[in-house]
């Protein structure tokens, strides 16, 4: 079973290298183990995360792509759909029934025809448009709703962190 998963991950890696989506770099941490990837995600333009380069890791199960990978940011993050330990919580990372958030029926779900690229693109849109209905970080969701100015300030600090630029 893991053999199929490996073949599929190698194909996906090749695809992502030949045809990288804008603002995303991703691949295995080392070529000995294709089940653990690193990704760098650029904060989307025109949002409070603009210019940031956010590192994350993806861990794939042995039965990938039947089951989805898990994704976790490895830098400090403050966002309604990211747990305080960096784990990403969006609908495409969950199969129906495996649903800690009670996502809306129209939400994009994991199925074996999805891909790493689709996940990363969903994460980029999540950065641009947080979903405060199903929040993994309640404080961030509350601040996003009630005090956008403060939220933007925190985001700017996080962006600077990722670029090693001190916060004034």
């Amino acid at each position, binding site marked *: *079973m893991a*053999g*199929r998963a490996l073949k*599929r991950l190698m*194909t996906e890696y090749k*695809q992502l290298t030949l045809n990288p989506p804008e603002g995303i770099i991703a691949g295995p941490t080392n070529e000995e183990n294709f089940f653990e990837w690193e990704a760098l995600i650029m904060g989307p333009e025109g949002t409070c995360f603009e210019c940031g380069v956010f590192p994350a890791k993806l861990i794939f199960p042995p*039965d990938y*792509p*039947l*089951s989805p990978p898990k994704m976790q940011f490895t830098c400090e993050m403050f966002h309604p759909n990211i747990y305080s330990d960096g784990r990403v919580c969006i609908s495409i990372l969950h*199969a*129906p*029934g*495996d*649903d*800690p958030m*009670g996502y809306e*029926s*129209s939400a*994009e*779900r*994991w*199925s*074996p*025809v*999805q*891909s790493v690229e*689709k996940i990363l693109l969903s994460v980029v849109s999540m950065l641009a448009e947080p979903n405060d209905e199903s929040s993994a970080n309640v404080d961030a969701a509350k601040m996003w709703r009630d005090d956008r100015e403060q939220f933007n300030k925190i985001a700017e600090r996080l962006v600077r962190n990722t670029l090693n630029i001190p916060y004034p």
Partner: protein
Amino acid sequence: MENNQTADSEETKSCEYDPNVNQDELIMAQEKQIAEEIKANIAMVGELDDLSSLEREYSNDPVYFSKVATLLPKFSNVRRTRPDGNCFLRGFIFAYLEYCIYHREELTRFKQYLEASKEELFEMGFPKFTTEDFNDMFMEVVTDLEGSGSIDRVEAIINDAGTSDYLVVYLRLLISAHLQKNAEFFSFFIEGGRTVGEFCKQEVEPMYRECDHLHIVALTAALGVGVRVMYLDRGEGSSVVSHDFPEDKDPVIHLLYRPGHYDILYKA
């Protein structure tokens, strides 16, 4: 959702409640453990078993016992499938490939159908390279059976997790495509105010989601393969009710339904 929360808080009163632990995640972890146990202990499609084994299974259950008795003259054997949410599809593809190795013209027809289905899925917007992966595997299996087709080979293929699961995934895509192509018709049968597209994303395309009437109607219509399902339940009457999918086609596959599960039946 609100109901869930009440149920959660009531349950947690009786056991020690740690507010720092996500209860949903605990439940999911337990479900996963149960699924792992089933995986380790039950073959995806088991060996050919005598139908009298079903009688023994229900020796203490008069309703089921007498209904099984009515199956006995018509059917001789049963193959049990793993109850993992894929049982209908696994049972279907096993029985169908078995039928195909004894009916070579059907195998040829199926191969042509598979070949053509790929382009159709692309046209409907299924992602190309992931869809292709599943189609490739199916073509490989069918080509393999064209050469060395034997029941042993079918058993080996369907019990090889990587291969078997990929076939199940592709059948799910075919069902999804058929439902979406005929969305206007099928939309009347979908519960919960969902669109046909949403239903496919939630109940059809993901693995381990159980197949219901709609899935069966769509798959048998898409492939043009007749399936007869024998319903063994506590419904009224002393005989087992059967239903043919599609209604106008002679069944080449027989499945036994017990609430929530499908196994393969063999005619006497």
